[in-house]
């Protein structure tokens, strides 16, 4: 799980162009949106595409993303449980 969490942090920094953010600055339980990492709705769409492309998880309801993308920890747990690749 720790390995997946690190992988997610690296992917988020790269794919969302968070150039000034280091992996060590993202806590496993920090909120990704709002006061935490400050991601927005366009980032949410990017993350939905990333889930499908990299882990084979297709979200049927985009509203699910609100819960899944709460933090790196929650996201990693969801991927671990539902991944097809």
């Amino acid at each position, binding site marked *: 799980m720790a390995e997946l969490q690190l992988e997610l942090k690296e992917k988020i920094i790269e794919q969302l*162009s*968070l150039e000034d953010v280091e992996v060590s600055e993202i806590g496993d339980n920090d909120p990704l949106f709002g006061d935490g990492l*400050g991601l927005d709705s*366009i980032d949410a769409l*990017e993350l939905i*595409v990333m889930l499908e*492309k990299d882990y084979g998880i297709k979200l049927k309801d985009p509203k699910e993303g609100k819960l899944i993308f709460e933090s790196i920890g929650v996201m990693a747990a969801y991927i671990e449980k539902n991944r097809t690749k």
Partner: protein
Amino acid sequence: MKGCYINGISNISAQPTTVSTTFLEEIVGHKEVIIRAFDPDYKTFIKPAAMRRMSKSVKMGVVASKMALEAADIVMPDAIITGTGMGCRQDSERFLENVLHNDEQFLTPTLFIQSTHNTVGGQIALGLGCKGYNVTYVQGAVSFETSVIDAQLLLTESPEQHILVGAIDEIAKNSTKLDILNGQLKQGECDWLTILSSGTSGTICSEGATFMVLGAEQSNKSLAQIKAVTTINDATLDESKTAIETFIAAQGIVPDDIDAVIFGNNGDQDFDDYFHNLQTSIFKNTEQLCYKHLIGEYHTASAFAFWIGCEVFKHNTIPEVLKVNEVKAKQYNKILLYNQYRSRNHSIVLLERC
């Protein structure tokens, strides 16, 4: 219309025009056919969170617009009009690469959203919170002049407005190189500073952004008045000469009343005859300037001539690096700008000292 005054202007180009306070005293000579514009310190103008999705054209546009607004002492423009020949090429290219690499699946929204030509105008409006008129013109090498014409019309209807008018074009990793293959750019390295007498086909390429704030009333910030602008889609050598003579006559003046002419020669022997034809005839006794050997060619490069015109009025002198003949004007009150690209998209502009 009361008038159309340039109350602030800024420029990002292949020369250090944003960092230097002098008028082209510091010149950088280039050798490669395709050269990127000098990057100002974007972080001093754009918050990192906002900047992370911005391509070069968006960053250049946002920064140049902020600099022009600051120069004009305007916080919020009433309208934003932008001109671009090719728009956000970098994100368009990356989006198409994703389409190919991912077999038309898993396409992320950011590149698609930001690949449209009006992205820069939109990002400037978002950053400022400007909900006014916002239009982008994509008209080849007269994209910027078309934006200026629209601003003139808008000022006729609403003379109280302050209008932000800008030009943006960027080079991209792959698509700009296509211009080498199709002969628009020169083959191999070349010395930019001597490009105007190259005697070869094709030109040199770069990118840049020029923004200005226009108003109908003259103020203590006014740098120049845009007396008239016209564009012609297609013209022969004789037609372009006649069009310029007609344009000048329509202003109630004769060619000798023009103190200096800024030409858009780009060193392409196949098309510079349009400029040579004028430089050796109606303007042979007029001071002549060229600038594309400094900033390269791109669809909105002609906006740089507006910046030069304002700088000439401001400094009352012309740097040697711009001069292409020996004639020296007694004063600089009226400056004519003429540009065309590969015999198309001709633009004629008359600037007058305030």
